């Protein structure tokens, strides 16, 4: 019987000992993999300077709002070739998320929504491995002067084929940015 108590006492000591360790080691920070900090849409005309639309959010889902910038106005009656770049700038050097989207092109799609710019046309989207639209590159054609917004939405696991509207594309939203755009 005494033995049992001896072992019980040892167990107590063991627990005490394991509780008493010094906590010098602090946890390492998480290397966030799902973050996109930056969406950059570069619209390049055949001649002249490119227009850059940028959404930058330095703290992911933290309290800071994304900062939206548009480098200038679009010209009327112009064809722009557009390219979308997604970055995680919390990494150094910045991680290129566009590559990841292009690699799994069949599981992603960019959807373009125009508001107040009824004659602007976005077409000629690049395609995924199944020849379905992907939209990391596209053409944007302006006609008359005007102003409105253009929204870029990246959907994950979309229903393909679709008519290019958000309702039919479905899936989950990975990123969405709405820019005020002026055509003159």
């Amino acid at each position, binding site marked *: 019987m005494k033995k049992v108590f001896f072992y019980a006492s040892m*167990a107590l000591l063991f627990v005490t000992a394991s509780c008493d360790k010094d906590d010098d080691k602090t946890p390492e920070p998480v290397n966030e993999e799902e973050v996109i900090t930056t969406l950059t849409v570069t619209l390049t005309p055949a001649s002249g300077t490119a227009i850059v639309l940028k959404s930058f959010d330095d703290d992911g889902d933290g309290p800071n709002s994304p900062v939206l910038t548009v480098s200038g106005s679009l010209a009327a009656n112009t064809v722009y070739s557009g390219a979308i770049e997604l970055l995680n700038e919390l990494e150094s050097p910045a991680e290129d998320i566009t590559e990841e989207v292009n690699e799994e092109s069949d599981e992603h799609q960019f959807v373009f929504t125009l508001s107040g710019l009824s004659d602007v046309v976005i077409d000629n989207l690049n395609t995924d491995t199944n020849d379905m639209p992907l939209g990391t590159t596209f053409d944007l054609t302006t006609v008359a002067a005007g102003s409105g917004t253009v929204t870029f939405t990246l959907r994950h696991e979309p229903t393909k084929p679709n008519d290019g509207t958000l309702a039919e594309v479905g899936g989950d939203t990975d990123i969405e940015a709405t820019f005020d755009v002026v055509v003159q």
Partner: protein
Amino acid sequence: MRLLKNGAILKFIVAPFYLFCISFLSCFSAFSQEKIEELEEVVVYDKFNKITKALNKTILTNRDLEDLSSLPFGEVLKHINGVSTLNTGNTISKPVIHGLHSSRVAVINNGVRIEDQEWGVEHEPSLDINSVDQIFVLTGADKLEYSGNSLGGVVVTLPKAVRESVGFSGKTLFTASSNGRGGSLASKFENRFNNDWFANLNWTIKKFGDFETPDYNLSNTGYGENNVSLRTGKNNVNSGIEFYYSFFNKNVGILKASHLHTGEDQYRGINSPVPLIISEFTYAINAPKQEVQHHVAKIDFYTNLAKLGKLDISYNYQLNRRFEYDIRRSSTNKKPSIDLKLDTHVINLKLTSNISSKLNTKFGLESKFQENFANPETGIRRIIPDYTKYDLTAYAIGNLAVKENFLFELGFRYDHTHIDAYKYYRKSLWEARNYDELYADITIREVSSQILANPKFNFGNLSFSVGSYFSLGGHHDLYINYALLARNPNPSELFSEGLHHAAARIEIGDLSLRSEIGRKIQLSYKYKINKLQASFSPYLNDIENFIYIIPTGSRATIRGTFPVWEYKQNDAVLYGFDYDLNLDISENLSFNQKISVTKGFEKISNKALIDIPPLSIKNEVTLHVAKYKDLELTLESEYVSRQNQFPDNNFDLYIPRTDAFVLLDLSTPPSAYHLLHLKSSINLNEKTKIGLRVNNLLNESYRDYLNRMRYYADDLGINFSLFFNKRF
């Protein structure tokens, strides 16, 4: 609550405590050498036990449980009046007692409090229903033996008592269900050897594919369980030792259509009459899903000491692993989004004494050490930070028979808790909440726009419970209990900070939260004549600093706009009653009725609390023909009303794309529903029982207020379950 610079005070407390434990043990070892006499008091103690158990109203026994062996633990608890469940689909089910859940409900299995990240509303108790033989919900002073912070209640489950006679016995339970196209198989083996040694083994396998509503398949809702538990030991009248090990492993899919990335996606999901994703039936479980592994190892020793009573010493270790998988941007990324490892060591000492034939007492000491590790390899910010937690507890409970018909009980418990956490805060949030000024002293360093902070907390809580039992002569019994309990804020309430993918919302904790203090008064009146038994149990729970989460605004991020929910505290009150009636109409026919009413409000604003169970009424008619193979036929009607008292947590969510607001309706409760269930069983012979249960007999479409999937999908349609129990 104070934030401490270091754990010096704690060590100061720990050391003497252990010295005390050890000297206590040494003293007793001397006594235990003496020959032990059979104590007359044992009889009285048994009587006490019976009465206390009767007061603890509830009880699901082995007989109830064996027909329900294919269900998750929480779903089984729902059969107790006053207990409802907070569900994530039909496969993740956590108990709600008198309107309270999560950290406010403790589950004790075989004497071990289950430590399993119970803070989360989508986390259920890690417990195999087939390892359980009896279930009680403790309301009296006895609960202080297990917990001082369970403002809702304490659920105690007991394994089957070990065989007293030498020999072998066992049982196999098999259930096959149409809905989910799966079933469960469980076996229990018991053996007592010649020399006081015994061994019990249980195992369970469950496997289900997608469940379905009357109209569509619930994609990705299958689950599987593999559980095993082993108890072995040696016991006789005077002493015993027991070794226990159990392993619970559950892999469960989460409705795919409920996994929504942004507030607007959630709006689409809520406003779609059918789930956004409906696929063909499959047994496959893909992300979003959860996997939980829970190990419990325990060693328990007891001895009967002359004059002093029964001394119990036990040590248990628990390891809980929780993995939650979300749909990642890259499908090649198979890593979990949440990967938590929770280690808990508990050592406790208990002395149960029968001081006289009228008084028995229980004293206990407990020390607990817990360590949570959140694996950074997930690539997703930790939802719960790394922390260590120490608890030191002492309790004393006494039962006194003042007269034959008047029993008195009193219990005290003191818990000291120390939490030492390491958490990375986003610098933007740290500053936005003014933590840089309030908690500058706990900052360790800044790493790439994150602040590593080292919050430390010390809580000292005293709880007590006092109760009385009166037999009012003849047919009336009355029980009254008053309890004061205190609960510290849990890690999610303190530390949450960021996007909770499962809920598509940003959740923010608060370092300045204080302990909740609950004062609950409960009355139980029982009436019993030959053919009629009725009980009525009203209660009132007045809670100071009640902690809850409410929406406080929305936040624009590059991913889209999210609702922001923050933890707050306010005084609240919950009240209600449970009512139960049993009537034997004739020799073969009986009727049972259960009604449960719960109300909960914030005190100052008088705003209703969220997730309060609506009125439920159950009526059951049972036909029992003993001479015809013990035939039992039960028709059950279950009515759940619409919850009309709910907080308005709706949101106007701004969508920049359309430059418009949409109403995110997170509040409106679903309509009332009425379901019929049928149960039937016969004993083929003394050892074999077969039965058929039909749930939702009329194949009604309905949604339940306490099911988080109600926003996106209907609840289960008709389900035929065939069960087969064989004893050997």
